[in-house]
Structure formats: C-alpha cells, structure tokens
C-alpha cells in the first residue's frame, strides 16, 4: 500500500477516533463505504503483541470522548443530576456525532447543546431539561462575558427631561435574558443545596443572569420587567421602554414603574452606559 499523505492520515484518524462505537467498528464502517484499509489498520499504525494498532488508536478514541464528556458535565451539573450519568453519557454521544467540536477552546465544545437537547428524545422523558440546559449555559456565558464598568447613577441627573424619551441604555454584556416554559430554578436550587433535583414545575418563567464584579447572579423577574429589559437590550429608547411597560401595567403606572426599574437595574449593576442622542 502506498504511504498515506499527512492529510489522508489525519482524516483517517479523525474518522476512526470519533467513530461512536470504537475504532474496530469505525474500520468496518469505512469498509462498508469503500474507504477501508484492505490490510487493516496495521498498514498505517504500528501494532505489536502487547498492543494492536486498533487498541492503540482506541486509547485516543476513549480520551476524545471522556475528555469532552467531563468538560460538558462540569458546566451542566443540574442536568446531569436530573437525567443521571448514563442518560447524559448517551446524550453527549449523540451530541458529538451531530456537533463535533470546531472551536480551539474546549469551553465552546457544548455551545450547540441547548438547541440540540430540545430536539433529542431525552426531552420526551424530561421535558424541562431543555430549559434547564439553557439556564446552565447562560450561567457559563455570563461567567466570562466582557467586562464593563457600571456607570455612576448621578450621571443621569444632568439629562434634561425632554431628552429622556430618546435616551438609550447600554446594558452589561454579561446580561442573558431567558424566557422559559419551566421553573427550572427549582431543581437548580435543590442541587445547589445538596439535595436531589426533583422535577421542575410547568410554569412560564423569565430569568435574567448577569455578573456583578466577578459574581454570577440570576433572578426570576416579572413579565413587565422582562419585556422592558428585552426592549432595552435591543437598543430601544427610553420612550419605547415606557410604552412596553405601559402595555403591562397601564399608562398611569408606567412612568413610575419604569423609574423603579431603572433604580433596580443600577443597583444590580446592569447599566454600564447610555446614549442621550
């Protein structure tokens, strides 16, 4: 057999290392599609009586899967606790086939998991798990989002009243807004408390996650705050924020409630700038 080029060698090894049932099955699958090795893997990889070529490559295959599984489990501890390690293992096996890592950093290997799990059969048994995975992934993204200094609330004192309707807020880049169908903070909190996760209640839940200094925080918020904050995150001016609020609490109460919210957002460190134009 002619020696493989470097590129051929790498593509062959990638295919065998990522084969879902091990290198031997991967080799058989290659043969089935006409890309097999007539003289076996030993024609490419040295084997010896101590360790065959297949076993040597299987070392890499196992490390590939378990390194990724371990990394992903660390970021989704509640989801693992809910479905159990075996079901999570199977989920990640399926996930890696659909979404092999493409980013140089392991931190992004599971970036597609929130979307993937909602289509996965696991969600039939655990319908709240897709929302739970979304929440745990939001915490990861909040943890290392860009830094931004909170502005001094006194800066608003200089803004003329007539300028307020067009004022646009700049929110902290760490803010994540999650509209969820399930109250997944319940199992999350139980796991944090060291107890069994249990199930989540089917209840529309709106959550914001954000970072204050280095602390990752989250809070369930009422519908009117969520809608107004979502509008602010879209870059809508303060006048539109008030209209959004009015749609929830009525025009008579909108201005006062919006002013209240602004104060809360300052206190929480959500506002990092504003554009009066």
């Amino acid at each position: 057999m002619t020696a493989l080029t470097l590129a051929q060698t790498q593509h062959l090894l990638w295919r065998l290392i990522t084969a879902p049932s091990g290198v031997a099955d991967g080799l058989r699958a290659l043969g089935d599609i006409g890309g097999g090795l007539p003289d076996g893997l030993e024609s490419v990889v040295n084997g010896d009586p101590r360790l065959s070529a297949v076993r040597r490559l299987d070392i890499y295959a196992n490390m590939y899967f378990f390194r990724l599984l371990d990394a992903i489990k660390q970021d989704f501890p509640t989801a693992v606790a809910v479905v159990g390690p075996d079901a999570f293992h199977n989920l990640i096996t399926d996930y890696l086939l659909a979404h092999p890592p493409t980013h140089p950093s392991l931190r992004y290997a599971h970036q597609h998991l929130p979307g993937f799990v909602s289509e996965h059969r696991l969600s039939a048994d655990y319908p709240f798990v897709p929302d739970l995975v979304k929440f745990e992934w939001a915490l990861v993204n909040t943890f290392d989002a860009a830094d931004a200094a909170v502005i001094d609330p006194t800066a608003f004192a200089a803004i003329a009243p007539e300028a307020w309707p067009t004022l646009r807020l700049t929110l902290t880049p760490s803010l994540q807004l999650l509209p969820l169908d399930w109250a997944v903070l319940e199992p999350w909190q139980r796991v944090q408390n060291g107890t069994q996760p249990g199930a989540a209640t089917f209840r529309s839940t709106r959550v914001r996650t954000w970072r204050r200094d280095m602390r990752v925080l989250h809070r369930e918020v009422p519908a009117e705050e969520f809608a107004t904050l979502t509008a602010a995150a879209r870059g809508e001016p303060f006048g539109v924020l008030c209209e959004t609020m009015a749609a929830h609490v009525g025009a008579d109460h909108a201005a006062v409630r919006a002013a209240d919210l602004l104060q809360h957002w300052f206190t929480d460190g959500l506002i990092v700038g504003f554009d009066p134009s």
Partner: protein
Amino acid sequence: MFDPTTSRPRPLGCGVGLRTPHYPYIFEHWPAVDWFEVISENFMVRGGRPLHTLTRIRERYPIVLHGVSLSIGTTDALNFDYLTALRALIDRFEPAWVSDHLCWTGVGGRNLHDLLPLPFTDEALAHVVGRLQRVQDFLGRRIAIENVSSYLTFRHSTIPEWEFLSEVATRADCGVLLDINNIYVSAVNHRFDSIQYINAIPPARVWQFHLAGHSDHGDYLLDTHDHPVTDAVWDLYRHALDRFGCASTLIEWDDHIPDFPELQAHADRARRLQEQPHDRAHIGADAAPLVATDHRA
C-alpha cells in the same frame, strides 16, 4: 528576557502550572514559586474572573503562555482567529515566552481536543517547519514547541522522533519545551531509549522542561498528569540537567490535583536538583540506558 549569548530565554527557575483549585491559596499566601505556566486557551475569553485572576497573578509572578490548540501539524489552514486571540493575550500579559505542542489537534475544521502524534516523515517535517515560521512571523516572536506523549506510531514514519523534533527546531529556529515525562511515557510505549532521545536534542534549543506524573495501564503508560513525578522521570531529569543545564522547569498536574504545598514541594525538589549538581548522579552519553525500554522487563 532572552540571553543574547545563547539565544535561549534566561531561566525563570522552577514553577508550577496555574490551576483553578489553587487560586484561593495563591491569593492568601502568595507562595514562593518562581513562575506560573498558564494554559493560553483558558484565558481566551472576553472577561470575567479568568482574566481578572490572571491579571493579579501576573502582577507578582512571571508567566509563560502554554497552548494546547495551535495544532501546528494539522493540514488545515492556519487559524488566524486563534492566533489573533493568542497575540492579544501576549500583548496583555507579556509572558516570558509562548509554547505549544508538536502535534495536530484536529482536521477538517473539527477539533479533537487532544495532542495527536504526527507521522515523522519529510512531508510532515516541511509542513510543520513552514507553519511554525508563519506563526512566529505573525506573533513577532519565536516560540517553543513541546514533544508529546504518544500511544501509537505510524508505519510510514522514516525519521526517529528525536531527530524530527531537533530538525523542526533547527529549521524553524524555534525553542524546544522538552517534556521529560513525555519522553519516558513514549519510550515505554514504543520501546525506545530515553537517553538516546535526550542526547539527540541540541542544547541551544532547549528553553524549558516539563515534569509530570503518569498512569500505568499495564500494557502502556498514559500521560495523565494525575500522579507525582516518578523516580524514573526524576532520574531522567537529572540527566537532562547535565546535558542542557538549568533550563526553566515546570511541574504539571491536571487531575486529582493536590494541595498547593505538595505541588510546590515538587517544584522545590526540581530546584534543589538544579542548584546542587553534585547531588545528581552523572549519567554520561556512553552510559547504559537509564530507563529500560520495557519497564516491566
């Protein structure tokens, strides 16, 4: 930072890998380690605690950026997004130097997140040298390249690993991060002589040593970084010091991570060996191999 008479970086002493479980201890005690090695990719993030932590560490210690995803051997195009992120880290934290591995980590746009061995062929040699030169041009600095542990070799390899590594370093004009544990692990797995490996590496190229523990899986050794450095690897390190002098030395520990003082004790042991050459049993180039090629023989 570089010694103009040797073109090697000035030795930093003996350091340890910076790992998350040790942050509280470091910030409370500011321990007397000479330097920290930092996994570059862990800090290629937009903000938050990782960068804040590294900023505090850097204010007190020298650091070296050690990457795991450069993938210098892949046949994919160079990833300039990755290199741009690496250059930004370099500009921000001013490491003493930058290193990565002589390996490939993925192909076809997919990443295996592992350090895969290369076939040691003329094709691979030319490929790696050309890419290293482009990487160094882009970063505006020479980097060091590390030998990896391996569990397989290729039938079509034509060059011994130690010659391949030496040729890469010489032709690309880069440094070598010589991982003593990796030499030992691969020597057992592939039945070659560790001493022959070390004696083949040009001393002027060696910028740094790695020391770590491994696991014995019966039929092979696995580079797990989850055990203390073994006596056999310490012996090999003594030989490396005799041949290469006191290059900067780093203790790696990535799993079952001990308390910081135990890790620091390993760095202290390495330092004692550097400072007391009379304690090192001299093993010359003509001596019998220090490490049997089959450790269970």
